[in-house]
């Protein structure tokens, strides 16, 4: 170690915690860069290509079937993004957002800074939500690119409106699921199994029970927000026909109610997650 001049200590050290917004912002930026490098993101990005493949298949094999771009988009959002892609991506990015740092011990360095615990938590959560949204946005953008190859007539105001609406709803779904999964990742020692059970057990079961029980699932409220397209053609073959004809069997509730439920779940799970995080013991 060479001799070097030590910068003088400030005479009066401010012992107030860092501003939560600034600290959360810096942590989110660095966490975003960290999460973007994770190998699992490659797998998630590949899985997210599923809707693109489906749109491509329709373009190639059913060009004259009368399935409009709006119908494709609504069906994909309703049957692929909401029941499958949003929970999967939010689960595999949200669950480790906080828990992994605690497990691997790197949390020590941020924990011993004058930063409020909520800022650490929110920074990590925001990064997880952003990464998940970006993954699914990429998929949605590719779907759009494939759809518009049909010709300029596809780009109508209604289509663009539905596209933006779908994007916002997907983002809202990702943010809600990621908040929930991050809280689970903070609470459970081995959180992946409970998260999978929730996403594909509870959500599947409850969202398919008729009457008001289905309102207890996040998926129901997300699907409720999607604008129904015009009736699907009845003579479509196989899986595609099944998807389009069974897609919208839901008892609708007011859209405002669904937005409020999703926002409330996001808020409550975030507050719960912060509370759990504050109680955490960094034993590694």
């Amino acid at each position, binding site marked *: 170690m060479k001799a070097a*001049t*030590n910068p003088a200590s*400030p005479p009066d050290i*401010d*012992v107030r915690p*860092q501003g939560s917004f600034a600290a959360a912002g810096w942590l989110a930026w660095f966490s975003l860069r960290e999460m973007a490098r994770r190998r699992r993101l490659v797998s998630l990005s590949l899985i997210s290509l599923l809707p693109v493949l489906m749109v491509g298949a329709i373009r190639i094999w059913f060009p004259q079937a009368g399935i409009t771009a709006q119908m494709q988009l609504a069906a994909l959002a309703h049957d692929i993004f909401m029941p499958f892609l949003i929970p999967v991506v939010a689960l595999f990015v949200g669950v480790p957002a906080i828990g992994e740092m605690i497990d691997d011990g790197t949390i020590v360095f941020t924990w011993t800074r*004058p930063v409020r615990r909520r800022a650490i938590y929110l920074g990590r959560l925001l990064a997880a939500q952003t990464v998940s949204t970006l993954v699914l946005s990429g998929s949605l953008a590719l779907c759009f690119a494939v759809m518009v190859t049909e010709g300029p007539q596809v780009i109508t105001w209604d289509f663009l409106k539905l596209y933006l609406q779908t994007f916002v709803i997907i983002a809202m779904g990702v943010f809600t699921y990621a908040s929930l999964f991050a809280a689970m990742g903070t609470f459970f020692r081995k959180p992946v199994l409970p998260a999978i059970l929730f996403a594909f057990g509870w959500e599947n079961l409850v969202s398919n029970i008729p009457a008001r029980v289905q309102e207890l699932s996040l998926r129901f409220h997300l699907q409720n927000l999607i604008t129904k397209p015009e009736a699907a053609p009845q003579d479509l073959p196989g899986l595609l026909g099944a998807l389009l004809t069974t897609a919208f069997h839901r008892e609708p509730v007011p859209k405002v109610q669904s937005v409020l439920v999703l926002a409330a779940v996001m808020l409550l799970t975030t507050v719960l997650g912060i509370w759990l995080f504050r109680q955490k013991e960094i034993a590694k």
Partner: protein
Amino acid sequence: MKGAGIDSSHARITADRVGKWFGEVIAVNNCTLSVGTGVVGLLGANGAGKSTLFKMLAGLIEPSHGTVRVFDRRLRQDVGWYRRVGFCPESDALPDWMTGREFLALMLRLMGFEKAEINRRVGYWLERFELEDAANRRLGGYSKGMRQKIKLAQAMAHDPDVIFLDEPLNGMDPVSRKQSIDLVRELGQQGRTVLVSSHILPEVESMTSEIILMDRGRVLAEGAVAEIRDKIPEHPTTVALVSAAPRALAGFLIGREHVVGVQVDQENRVVVSTDHAVAFYRALPGWLLGNGLVVDEIVTLDDSLEAVFQYLTER
């Protein structure tokens, strides 16, 4: 023996009857201690409870009972006080995807420093730990010694007044080890509080003579090594006196105050056992001068940290 030698009225770190259980395992049991300024070694075998105590003091874990305070604050609640605290964990975990420069910069950013000051401090500490060449390399590619250095740098870069170093020399080469020991001593001389944990006695001995000794979750002793040594009555301190007239000297010392045994060894040295080494050393010059005796050399045989540690842990 708790509190011996350390001025608790100026304590920056205190623990009051603190304990920690993990399930049925008692990691730390009813520890009370106070640490003032300077370097203090927290010593104990692996599993003695040092790291758990460290984590409680640094606010990483909550005690099962008792209280821990730094600057009379509970760090888990008053997180703003981390501005005055540095922590170097034992764990090797680092954000491997970051470069050394980015890591230090983020740590300083979270301390609230502005960009110009961050750059200045990052440059200083990278230079101080001779990491300039590796500054833009990912931490994942750092050697064990380099990782240890960057952990030390992040604990010191914001000029904290209290620094916790948990096994800070693990994995360092001898040169870096020596430099780090010098740095720790320098920080102690600057009036900072440096609590260093280690299970390697010579390491601690080279940094400080003030120790807290732990065994099986309990604080066995706290204070200066020599003072602690004096308080182990079962093992009187042994001193060898080299003299031209060993038998005359031995005869004179028999029965003197604080002398509990005298013998002449095979090397013709007078080996004295004393129950109070400090008082014995104070009285010896007067006895020699007053009786025309000459001693050429005095060697203390068992007041090393190792001996103290051994005696205390075998109790």
